[in-house]
């Protein structure tokens, strides 16, 4: 971000130099140094900084992130919406007012920003939708879930926007759990299911921040996610893949009291499909593989549904219900 808008200090620049304005450094000083970082089990080489990720040594990488020309459409188009076109190996994504992204072969993200040099929201979309497309192209299962480590294993907490995933994860961490991933659970393998670490940052609302005694004034508001802040979580981050212990599905319900129940196989698969991260990036030709993958998860990992009232604060119930369910599973497996 900073190096892209770096200016020559007028005090040391020769007066005869014509003003070039806010040019990308590549035009003045050669290509910028790439950033090497890690997220979701992948090493990325990126020409823009990807905020919140773990630094990685320069060298081998899995995914290249570069600015460059982006085609208008994928070729061929297997599926599309107004925002994107794609096939199993390629996705072209338009984010209004931010830029366009071309994700290919699960190895490369090419981006064309609307405003050259404006790196700030770009990185968020690289780490979000674009990396989601990369992982789908690599054939991995993705769940829109927060994951914490409890008793040495991962617990995935999924739910729609506003269900309270990140808040629940933050509260579990306050009581001794560690954070594996805040937003997307990526499966490293399925026999048995393991989850890879995301990166040490959480997206939390001001309300959730208050619960964990953090001051939003010290934090950066997130682009495109009103009322949420990027919270560094390095101190509680688990940087290793973990076997998946259980999946918790949080739903809002009209009932006055919260309830928790073990899910049967078909509703469990249905829930995993509903909470897949960027589900539409699973192309029709990949749907059978993805479906069978969720079948494997449901066969091996217990799933629970937590219905919490729309009104009122049921966070304490949700947190203790998850802790009790995990303790019960651990006992039965001991």
């Amino acid at each position, binding site marked *: 971000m900073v190096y892209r808008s770096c200016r020559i200090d007028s005090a040391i620049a020769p007066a005869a130099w014509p003003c070039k304005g806010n040019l990308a450094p590549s035009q003045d000083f050669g290509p910028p140094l790439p950033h090497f970082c890690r997220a979701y089990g992948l090493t990325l080489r990126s020409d823009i900084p990807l905020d919140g990720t773990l630094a990685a040594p320069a060298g081998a990488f899995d995914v290249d992130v570069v600015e460059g020309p982006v085609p208008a459409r994928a070729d061929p188009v297997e599926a599309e919406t107004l925002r994107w076109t794609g096939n199993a190996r390629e996705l072209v994504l338009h984010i209004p007012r931010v830029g366009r992204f071309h994700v290919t072969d699960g190895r490369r993200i090419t981006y064309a920003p609307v405003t050259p040099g404006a790196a700030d929201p770009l990185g968020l979309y690289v780490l979000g939708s674009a990396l989601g497309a990369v992982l789908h192209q690599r054939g991995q299962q993705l769940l829109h879930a927060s994951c914490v480590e409890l008793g040495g294993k991962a617990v995935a907490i999924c739910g729609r926007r506003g269900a309270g995933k990140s808040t629940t994860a933050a509260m579990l961490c306050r009581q001794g759990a560690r954070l594996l991933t805040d937003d997307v659970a990526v499966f490293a393998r399925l026999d048995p299911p393991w989850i890879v670490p995301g990166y040490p940052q959480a997206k939390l609302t001001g309300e959730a921040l208050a619960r964990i005694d953090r001051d939003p004034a010290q934090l950066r508001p997130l682009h495109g996610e009103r009322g949420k802040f990027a919270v560094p979580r390095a101190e509680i981050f688990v940087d290793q893949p973990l076997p998946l212990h259980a999946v918790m599905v949080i739903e809002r319900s009209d009932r006055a009291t919260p309830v928790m129940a073990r899910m049967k*196989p*078909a509703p469990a*698969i*249905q829930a995993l*499909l509903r909470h897949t991260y960027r589900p539409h990036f699973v192309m*029709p030709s990949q*749907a*059978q593989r993805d*479906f*069978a993958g*969720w*079948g*494997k998860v*449901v*066969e091996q990992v217990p799933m629970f549904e937590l219905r919490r009232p729309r009104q009122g604060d049921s966070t304490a119930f949700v947190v203790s219900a998850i802790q009790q369910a995990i303790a019960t599973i651990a006992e039965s497996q001991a």
Partner: protein
Amino acid sequence: MTDPIAATARPARADDALATAMGDGMVLMSMDSGKFVELNETAREVWNLADGATSVAAMVDRLGELFDVSADQCRAEVTALLATLRDQGLVHFDS
């Protein structure tokens, strides 16, 4: 209500049907309708036999070899299952 299924009909799994093993059974989903169907061990055999070439009569014979069931009961249950799968868009009959 729905068309009866003839013994000579040859059911075929729909192209947009997704399937996954679940214990001894299976879970199916129609991509088109989003509907889910759970199959037990015997229903799973019917699904596996729905290859577009095997007739309903041949299915009933095969299942009679695999499971301890009378021919009449087997025919009735296989036909009922196939009707359900057809109504959910999971199998079709191109005879």
